[in-house]
């Protein structure tokens, strides 16, 4: 039998190794942000970007189109990845993901309701109210699934996934019904928004997402150690001095806020919350004190790259980035599952 080992990563030298890795990821994110600013339908060389000698038109492209879009994709990527990682600790299940268990679609349904029933809106306040709706939808879904999977006492992956399927189907049907009710303009807004895109990204979106996602992410990161303990079980966590109920409530609230904000500004972008933490856990272990910040950085990096691809592959048209992440993320996740299964079977 081959044994599975990993250097226990608590000793100090390795801790600094982890920190240097985080720094490396930050650097990669920074470089990708610059690249994303330079690449696009109008190519703006990096040298011009650095020297500041930009034409008025290039300047406008950067400040009012690309910069908000690039920043937004980074924030949404971080929000989805950190929410996914936290939710996996909450449900003690590496398959928990805002998309898979229906929290994103619950949020999306709430947003669709606002779009269709309240009519078109614009501006910062409108975005906040969309975020509030998405947050409420996400929160209700999350609580529902949490109660449902917790009924038997022990969390069961089967119940969680079945509840997710049911909720995804239900909100899909309800959103479909709303689509049926909507007029042409609403229909267009709904369709593009639900595919997940940063196409309409403007500064108000950045403002709204930042003010919600940053505090929520900060709170989740601060609870990383307690989240590790929670993985041992509710009762064990209490024996170790962690108020598991309060922690669970806090995590549900923060992830619903983050996912709500992400869904409100960019629609449903799948698989980021699933694949990113999984990748980090596979290579560097499950310690949330490292997993959460690393997920934030890698999630941001991944979505900045994906969005750059989405707007350049078929330029001057563009792909919805949600379709792209699902296209890449789906097979990748299957590959991970197969690899994991093969590893466990010693193949």
């Amino acid at each position, binding site marked *: 039998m081959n044994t599975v080992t*990993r250097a226990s990563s608590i000793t100090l030298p390795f801790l600094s190794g982890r920190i240097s890795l985080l720094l490396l990821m930050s650097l990669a994110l920074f470089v990708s942000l610059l690249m994303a600013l330079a690449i696009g339908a109008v190519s703006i060389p990096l040298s011009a970007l650095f020297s500041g000698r930009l034409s008025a038109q290039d300047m406008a492209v950067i400040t009012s189109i690309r910069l908000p879009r690039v920043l937004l994709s980074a924030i949404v990527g971080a929000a989805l990845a950190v929410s996914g990682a936290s939710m996996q600790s909450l449900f003690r299940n590496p398959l928990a993901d805002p998309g898979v268990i229906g929290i994103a679609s619950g949020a999306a349904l709430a947003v669709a309701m606002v779009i269709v029933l309240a009519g078109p809106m614009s501006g910062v306040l409108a975005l906040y109210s969309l975020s509030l709706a998405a947050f409420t939808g996400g929160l209700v879904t999350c609580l529902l699934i949490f109660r449902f999977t917790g009924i038997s006492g022990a969390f069961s992956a089967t119940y969680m996934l079945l509840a997710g399927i049911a909720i995804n189907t239900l909100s899909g049907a309800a959103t479909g019904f709303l689509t049926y009710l909507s007029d042409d303009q609403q229909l267009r807004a709904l369709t593009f928004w639900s595919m997940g895109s940063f196409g309409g990204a403007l500064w108000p979106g950045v403002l709204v997402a930042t003010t919600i996602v940053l505090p929520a992410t900060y709170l989740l990161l601060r609870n990383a*150690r307690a989240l590790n303990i929670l993985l041992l079980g509710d009762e064990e966590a209490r*024996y170790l001095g962690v108020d598991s109920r309060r922690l669970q409530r806090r995590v549900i609230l923060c992830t619903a806020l983050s996912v709500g904000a992400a869904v409100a500004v960019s629609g449903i972008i799948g698989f980021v919350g699933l694949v990113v933490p999984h990748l980090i856990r596979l290579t560097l272990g499950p310690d949330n004190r490292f997993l959460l910040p690393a997920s934030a950085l890698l999630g941001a990096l991944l979505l900045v790259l994906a969005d750059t691809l989405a707007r350049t592959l078929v330029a001057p048209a563009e792909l919805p980035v949600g379709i792209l992440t699902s296209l890449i993320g789906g097979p990748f996740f299957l590959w991970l599952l197969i690899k994991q299964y093969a590893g466990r079977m010693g193949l």
Partner: protein
Amino acid sequence: MIAAENISYTIKHRPILDEVSVSLRPGTVTALLGPNGAGKSSLLKCLSGSVQPSTGEVHLDGVRLQNYSLLELSRRRAVLSQSTALSFPFTALELVLMGRNPHTDGPGQEDAQDRARQALESVDAWSLRDRIFPTLSGGEQQRVQLARVLAQIWGQRQACLFLDEPTAALDLKHQHLVFQLIRRLARGNGLTVCVILHDPHLARRYCDRAILMQQGQVFTAGAIAEVLAAENIERVFEIPPDWLDGWESL
């Protein structure tokens, strides 16, 4: 000193514990015995503060258990549950270090590594430190979980230790090693130990006192030799006398 006075515990009108009064003394190992469903685990949960009895009170050193905060309690008592599942790929050492969580901001945070190592060594599991916990065998997992629980109160005096069937998955050698360790800790550090087990041989060999339970009530409690007399075992476990042939003379 832990004392329970007339505690009852009911779940959905079903009585689990009925007017139970017991006390646990520092420096002694108390065995909690009884048939399946006698209420042993529930009593352990009441005594360790995991659940609050429906009526009656549990005192730790004269103070009601509810008056301790979760953190205060976690710094002076550790509990090993019957089954703990963990599907995330933590290493054995990382898991044991989680046992030091209550001391993160208090005294003893610097030597968390040392205490985790000593706890793992004490259950003969230091060689497993870098192994991924979910890939360990059942017995190995149980020893590592025990090390986590021991690490929580390692080096402390007057702490309390509750163990629910700590040797259920262990081989013969490790069963004895674990009970020798538990007795050594009780004697040396003045720990109050309460352990649920099913093997009367192990209980008689390593425990000082025993509480024999039947249908949610204490059948008898006291010194181990008296509690584990053949007629008590026959009555509580409802087994014919010839199943215990030679038990008294062993």
